[in-house]
């Protein structure tokens, strides 16, 4: 089992959701997040005083999958989120030691699907 975490541009969320749906990945968690990478922020001002904003608004996806779904999930995220410009985001993949469905008490691969 793997946990896939991806940071993407907020405005690409809908494209990513649709790509995942086509790849038959229906389970996803989404949270707002702030962060910075190569994009290095942007310039804002308020009442004539400049503000350096280096934390950009991003969306964080979390998807727990069985091994056979890892590649198609990653491909779907890239397909939906990629524009080719700096700021498209990153995908991180972690080993997942356990997964438990609260309602039934199922564990492991059965709980993920």
């Amino acid at each position, binding site marked *: 089992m793997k946990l896939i975490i991806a940071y993407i541009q907020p405005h690409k969320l809908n494209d990513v959701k649709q790509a995942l749906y086509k790849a038959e990945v229906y389970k996803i968690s989404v949270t707002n997040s702030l962060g910075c990478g190569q994009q290095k922020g942007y310039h804002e*001002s*308020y*009442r004539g*005083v400049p503000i350096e904003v280096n934390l950009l608004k991003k*969306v964080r996806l979390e998807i727990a999958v069985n091994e056979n779904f890892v590649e198609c999930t990653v491909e779907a995220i890239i397909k939906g989120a990629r524009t080719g410009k700096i700021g498209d985001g990153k995908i991180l993949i972690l080993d997942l030691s356990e997964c438990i469905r609260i309602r039934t008490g199922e564990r492991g691969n059965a709980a993920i699907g």
Partner: protein
Amino acid sequence: MCKSKIIVLFGLWMILATVLLGETIESSAVTEETVNAIKDEIQTNINIIWTCIAAFLVFFMQAGFAMVETGFTRAKNACNILMKNLMDFSIGSLAFFLIGFGLMFGSSNGLFGTNMFILSGTEPGSDWSWTFLIFQTVFAATAATIVSGAMAERTRFIAYLIYSAVITLVIYPVFGSWAWGNLLISDNLSWLANLGFHDFAGSTVVHSIGGWLALAGAITLGPRRGKYDSQGKPKAIVGHNIPLAALGVFILWFGWFGFNPGSTTFGDGRAGYIAVTTNLAAASGALIALITSWIVIKKPDISMTLNGALAGLVAITAPCDGVSPLSAIIIGGVAGVLVVLSVLLLDYKFKIDDPVGAISVHGVNGLWGTISYGLFAIDGGLFNGGGFRQLGVQVLGAATAFVWAFGLGLILFWILKKTVGLRVTCEEELKGLDIGEHGNEAYNSFQLFITE
């Protein structure tokens, strides 16, 4: 069946009408005196209705101030600033009724009014004084509420409550008696008015008084934590709700149609004329502030442009009845430049932290508007060949207002600092005054989802 009934009814109406008409013609020996008396009564009642409607419009400006100030400050202090706006109107209404009105409009000893406290001597009923009282109450409360924005996000609530009582009890009415003391009792001793000082709806009496008190408050308090870095460079503390601020400005603009045109307290065409000059000045204030901010800070900044509309309104308040529409556009335009430069100057040079721009909008442009009458007045203005006399009186009045309000403001806030304490603790300021002062939060279970 039905048709015949209608014919009968119509016939009856014709007979009745003929009889009544005949009677009117017979008694048409009504004297001119009676006609004039009826005319006067109708005019009086129109005046009362117009002044009441204007008063209610000015009351609604409280909502405008509340929204502007809340929008331009941070979410963690929203309850606090709303409470200040609610309470300065409530305390102000009571204080002005009990003491302030008498000091301002009662028979003056040369310095302040000495009777008419709680409007004693006036029968409950339809007397003009009641209409005049409610109209003047909302003006007094407008002066009081200007200060809350400049002192936002760091003032102890109890200190603010005491301040708002003092301004409507003493500071506002005593100066008011010098400039407007003869509005109710026409031969009252009112030294500025008697010199010919012209402040039609209160650029000085209301706005500068509020603005200079705000200046005294902001200086005594010091800037918000985090406003200046260790080198003294200003940092932006971003307002949390620009849509609310914009709504507030529209409400204030709307209310100003009561503030200026209503100050005729007379229902005739002058109200319409003043509405025109008022609107032109506001529009040109917004436009010129937009252009100024675009040139000076490279972007058409929304909060500066919103301030620009208000600056135009404040400036035209004194001269709105006595200048041409073209002059009104110039007066508003100059206000639009002044407000942007003044905000930047206070921020960068004097390091006075005014989160909403109250000092620049009300103090500086109240001053400009008052002086502008001496320049542009159709009757007696410098640019219309009237010489320097009117201008001199305008400068004298505006300067007197500065010394009076700023001086008393410094003393008042210093006393508050030494007694109840003027500023909240550092910890409370960081956590927000909503929790520290009120134990409330403005936005419970409210989170914006950034993808939508």
